[in-house]
């Protein structure tokens, strides 16, 4: 069985105009980027739009992309993080307490909907009430299981700062979950 090409080779091919290489890079990362946005923005549709924008920016930036010893996805996450900031800058009214539209209606597959248990929804909502940095860190570290050093680079933090932040983020999430369990109506508000 043929080994998939390594990422550096793919990037070089893409930079030389190889469409297939671009497509393979997209295929490798699209789900992770989409998943990231699903935690960071309200709706599935927005997550799809932002995912699309990430990859448009990827192809626009390929010409100037330089390998700095980091995985390619670190660059994509940085683009994604910038887009989230831009998104919330443009959509200032942000009701993080509300149940996202996506959890009510976007998952049209009935089996999907059954699969989302209440605890997971609460967890996602709780994450979205946290500061931006905490959200990024928790999603990248524990949901997407990115290496610690890679997250530190993506977030421009030192290893020590990231460790401290991770501790605080977990604590904050725990407190938020506890607050939500004390108030059952938390997270059931109108959305958007």
């Amino acid at each position: 069985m043929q080994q998939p090409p390594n990422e550096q080779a793919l990037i070089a091919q893409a930079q030389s105009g190889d469409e297939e290489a671009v497509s393979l890079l997209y295929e490798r990362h699209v789900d992770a980027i989409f998943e990231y946005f699903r935690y960071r923005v309200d709706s599935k549709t927005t997550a799809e739009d932002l995912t699309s924008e990430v990859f448009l920016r990827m192809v626009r930036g390929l010409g100037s992309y330089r390998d700095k010893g980091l995985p390619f996805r670190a660059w994509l996450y940085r683009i994604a993080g910038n887009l989230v900031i831009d998104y919330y800058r443009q959509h200032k009214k942000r009701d993080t307490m509300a149940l996202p539209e996506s959890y009510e209606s976007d998952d049209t597959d009935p089996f999907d909907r059954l699969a989302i248990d209440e605890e997971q929804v609460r967890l996602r909502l709780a994450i979205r009430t946290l500061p931006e940095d905490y959200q990024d860190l928790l999603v990248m570290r524990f949901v997407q299981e990115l290496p610690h050093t890679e997250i530190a680079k993506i977030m421009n933090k030192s290893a020590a700062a990231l460790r401290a932040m991770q501790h605080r983020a977990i604590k904050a999430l725990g407190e938020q979950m506890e607050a939500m369990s004390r108030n059952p109506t938390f997270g059931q508000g109108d959305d958007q």
Partner: protein
Amino acid sequence: MNDSQLTPEEQTLITQLRSVRKHKIDPAVREAIRAQMLGEFRAIVQSGQLPSTPTTGLTSFPFYVIAGLVAVVAIVIIGLAVINRPSENNATPTTALSPTQQVVVVPTSTPETILANETPTIEVTPTIAPIVTTELIASTPPMIVTTTPEPTLETVVVVEGPVSEIADNRVTIYDYSIAVEPQHPILNLINVGDVVRIEGMFDSSGVVVASVVSNIPSTNVVSGGEATVGLEGPVEAIDGNVIVVNSIPVQLTPDDPLLQTLEVGDFVSVQGNFQGSGATIVLVVVNITIVNNVIIDDNPLCWYHDDGMGMGHWHCDGMGMGGMGMGDDGMGGMGMGQ
């Protein structure tokens, strides 16, 4: 920090996070995005914006063709610059600049209320000095600045505001793209969203090239002074007269009295200049002050939380130096810190 240092509730949370159902993008949407992306890619390839394959393409490409292309592009740019010159009756600030003149770009409102189509105020404060022929044309961001190259021109541009994007060595503030030296350690410190102050000068292509970068908006590290970089953060390590702040080695003079009292964990504000290059770069201190030196139970992992409006408070976690560590393999779960 390892698992045993987490509460059972925190461990449960991490387990929950790891077990959440993963979303995959809808197949139809996936293909639609791919098609759009590839369409864009084709357009880019056709326009020649991608770098050609290294070595093979360039070595066989006749140099005179490149030179010819460069000449054509230069002529087009000059032509466009002439066409875009402001007319007499528009409101574009046009002034003669002196070699010491500063152009200050500051937001007209708080960063949170800046809209994409707002035009930052441009203050031009001329001083009496020999006149050079330079024109500044302000428009909605991105700002277009055309200059008539003048060897003695030292127009200083100061931009303060939140960083909206960092791509390679380009920092974007209010849609102004500013080039920072690629190896500048400040690039490892500033994040999107940070409010920074950048001073720089226009290069011959009209791009602002930073000469002073500070992540402390209230710190005066203005050009003409002695310091070009400002840092704030907890002291992570002390080795002789070199301390580490935000992973950057900071070099004090060996007889600096502060060294007698400074401890790991102290939160310091540093102004200085980078010296050296590559891995040996250090920030040589011009001024350093301890903002607060709260240390609880010898715990160095205290941090200052800025609540805005000049208010803030300290946090300290009950963590040892091992901290909350993760294996760098990414899958190792909770392991020891570095």
